[in-house]
């Protein structure tokens, strides 16, 4: 007999499990369409690798995660890809997310499967790869990719492997029915996982309210060392940390994972999926879902394809639409209300409760906390729910964090026992969300600071480089000037030293040249300065030359423009107008130049006429 421990707190809510255990697991069949969310687990969303309109086979990979943590999504049946678009998905926000929709063709034609009968002959990594490629993520809660979970850090040896068959939450019987009907597959999956991890001990923990499942598993594990541990029924004994405490007496450290104390927990459904993936080569394309509640006529468990709309399952279970007051996904303790029936079954969907108004009435209004302390007694994590509530309500998140808010497993035991019907868990979820958002913002702010500082440093560096270059240029210029001067001086010195006579003769020549130039310059003024001091022709002569030059330039420009205009006109180009304007402008210019030239000529003629009589 396995030794058992107890965890503190816990509650005993009405079970309502018998509603859905009277019928065997039924096949839900193939619905009219399937909606496959690209993100069905924590980690990164998958990316579609098929095109819209593509024909796909059953079991074909439709989407995969290329970088990051995640597992692929497969086609649950053969058919045509209808769209890759946003559809409502099972999420407490009721929001839409990216999904692939598949229209089944009714053939249900399998793709190539590669069953491995003797996995022991393979490498462990190969088997882990098969598990990843089969798209298996934890089927109990958050849906952590199983292949990553099965590869704990090297320094964390898993000595105890626990298969969690406690299923403590009311109404849900998916694991119970799976253990009853597929006990052999459960054990086969456990064996594969045990082979990968090589633990010292394998335990299947089952609550004592499931005698049939216990009997079935006892039979399936006969002759093996796997222990069947029957644990007393108490909510939330199926919580990972609680079950570990019950079976090993050890507590998972705050903020740690079970592998830190050498334990690993796997879900019953996950074990079946692993067995099917390895031994049959079947990817995770269906799961067992409990459809229960008083608003369905034939409650029970269904083997449903992933992507089956909830409404299809409700129809199969004979839902009485008028009686449904609330549709809850998951259990009554931890589940959330669905806003639409159109959401699909995903890898973590275990239960849908179609509840009547009398069954799950609207929560009574919240009353003030009377500090009774019942919540602290019920808390399985030994937290202080009351203090957490005060701090969360007052948005003093830091204080709530100090009281280990993040150790809260959101089991809802505190809310259940609260005599003031305070929705405590909702406060904790709100506080957790806010803290996470703040942390994300802090990270972003830190990155912004880094980028800002990097930019400042870069600008400063550029400024310095500019300054340096400017200085270098100035220095180079100064050097060049100094060199030139030195050369000139040197040349002058050399010239003096080489030949004094040559220098002298040069001086004489220079003097002569100056004298000549003087004489030349003074002659014409001597001729015209006396009679016409107002307009010296020496200045007018070059004026006329310049004007003539200007005129010829303008004329040639006009000619080219005219040529271009003619060409453009001939080709009917759209720049004719522009060219015409340009021609007109040039025409003006030529005219102005001509006028100026003739004016200057007249002036010159007049001045020369005036100057002639004096001679």
């Amino acid at each position, binding site marked *: 007999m396995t030794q058992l421990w107890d965890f503190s707190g816990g509650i005993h809510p009405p079970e309502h499990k018998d509603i859905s255990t009277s019928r065997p697991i039924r096949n839900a069949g193939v619905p009219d369409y399937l909606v496959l969310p690209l993100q069905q687990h924590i980690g990164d969303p998958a990316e579609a690798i098929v095109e819209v309109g593509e024909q796909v086979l059953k079991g074909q990979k439709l989407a995969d995660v290329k970088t990051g943590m995640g597992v692929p999504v497969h086609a649950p049946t053969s058919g045509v890809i209808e769209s890759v678009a946003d559809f409502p998905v099972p999420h407490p926000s009721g929001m839409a997310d990216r999904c692939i929709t598949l229209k089944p063709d009714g053939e249900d034609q399998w793709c190539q499967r590669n069953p491995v009968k003797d996995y022991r002959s393979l490498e462990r990594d190969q088997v882990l790869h098969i598990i990843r490629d089969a798209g298996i993520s934890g089927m109990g809660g958050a849906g952590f990719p199983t292949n990553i979970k099965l590869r704990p850090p090297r320094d964390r040896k898993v000595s105890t492997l626990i298969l969690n068959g406690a299923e403590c939450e009311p109404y849900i019987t998916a694991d119970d029915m799976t253990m009853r009907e597929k006990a052999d597959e459960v054990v086969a999956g456990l064996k594969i996982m045990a082979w990968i991890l090589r633990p010292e001990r394998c335990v299947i923990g089952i609550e004592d309210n499931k005698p049939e499942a216990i009997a079935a598993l006892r039979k399936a594990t006969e002759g093996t060392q796997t222990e069947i541990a029957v644990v007393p029924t108490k909510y939330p004994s199926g919580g990972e940390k609680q079950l570990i405490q019950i079976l090993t007496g050890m507590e998972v450290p705050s903020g740690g994972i079970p592998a830190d104390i050498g334990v690993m927990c796997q879900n019953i459904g996950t074990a079946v999926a692993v067995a099917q993936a390895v031994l049959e080569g079947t990817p995770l394309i269906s799961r067992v879902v409990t459809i229960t509640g008083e608003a369905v006529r034939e409650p029970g468990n269904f083997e449903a394809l992933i992507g089956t709309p909830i409404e299809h399952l409700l129809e199969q279970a004979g839902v009485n639409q008028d009686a449904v007051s609330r549709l809850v996904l998951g259990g009554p303790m931890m589940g959330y209300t669905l806003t639409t029936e159109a959401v699909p079954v995903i890898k973590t969907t275990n239960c849908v409760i179609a509840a009547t108004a009398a069954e799950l009435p609207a929560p009574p209004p919240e009353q003030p906390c009377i500090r009774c302390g019942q919540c602290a007694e019920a808390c399985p994590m030994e937290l202080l729910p009351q203090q957490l509530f005060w701090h969360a309500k007052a948005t003093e998140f830091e204080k709530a964090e100090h009281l280990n808010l993040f150790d809260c497993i959101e089991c809802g035991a505190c809310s259940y026992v609260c005599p003031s019907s305070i929705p405590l868990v909702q406060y904790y979820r709100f506080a957790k969300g806010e803290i996470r958002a703040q942390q994300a913002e802090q990270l972003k702010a830190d990155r*912004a600071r880094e980028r800002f500082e990097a930019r400042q440093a870069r600008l400063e560096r550029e400024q310095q480089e500019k300054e340096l270059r400017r200085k270098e240029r100035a220095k180079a210029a100064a050097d060049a000037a100094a060199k030139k001067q030195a050369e000139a001086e040197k040349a002058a010195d050399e010239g003096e030293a080489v030949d004094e006579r040559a220098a002298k003769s040069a001086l004489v020549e220079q003097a002569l040249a100056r004298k000549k130039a003087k004489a030349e310059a003074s002659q014409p003024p001597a001729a015209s300065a006396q009679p016409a001091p107002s307009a010296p022709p020496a200045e007018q002569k070059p004026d006329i030359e310049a004007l003539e030059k200007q005129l010829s330039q303008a004329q040639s420009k006009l000619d080219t423009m005219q040529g271009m205009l003619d060409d453009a006109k001939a080709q009917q180009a759209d720049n004719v107008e522009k060219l015409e304007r340009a021609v007109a402008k040039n025409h003006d210019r030529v005219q102005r130049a001509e006028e100026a030239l003739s004016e200057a000529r007249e002036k010159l003629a007049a001045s020369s006429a005036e100057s002639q009589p004096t001679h």
Partner: protein
Amino acid sequence: MWTSVLVAVVVLLALAVVFGGLLGFAAERFKVEGNPLVDQIDALLPQTQCGQCGYPGCRPYAESIAEGGPINKCPPGGESTIKALADLLDVEPEPLDAEHGVEQVKRVAVIREDECIGCTKCIQACPVDAILGAAKHMHTVIESECTGCDLCVDPCPVDCIDMVTAEPDIRTWTWTPPKSGLIATDRQGASA
């Protein structure tokens, strides 16, 4: 008598020299670079680098706060930042100084890309290098790095930058606090 006084004086003098040297060495050896308070204040500021406080960036504002300046000049940080600063500096929180702007929901800049002329003016204005592009080529904003500081909006000559409020999606969604409504006795009154 005199010798004992002399001995005491000499001993005390020697002690003073030794400890003085030690303290001097420690002051040099373990010198703290900059003001650690500025870092603490800077860590609380939202790092939008928007300059709405009147300082060129968050760090200069942190320096002014460390010197005793007002703590209510940061609109992007809003009330929560003022509260955090008041906690850190042990002063009374003040309401946000409206002169520097009002608290707004978080936004990001988005360039209408077909209207962008590639002038690089916004790239030069961005304090966190969150705009990507080159001269005469279209620019785009790296959304995850944008702090929503607005500084790129004014320099744009063709007004092609919009400040867009980020809509919560399924991955950023968080639980809302429960609505604390009526108490039980009120509910009976309300339904009656």
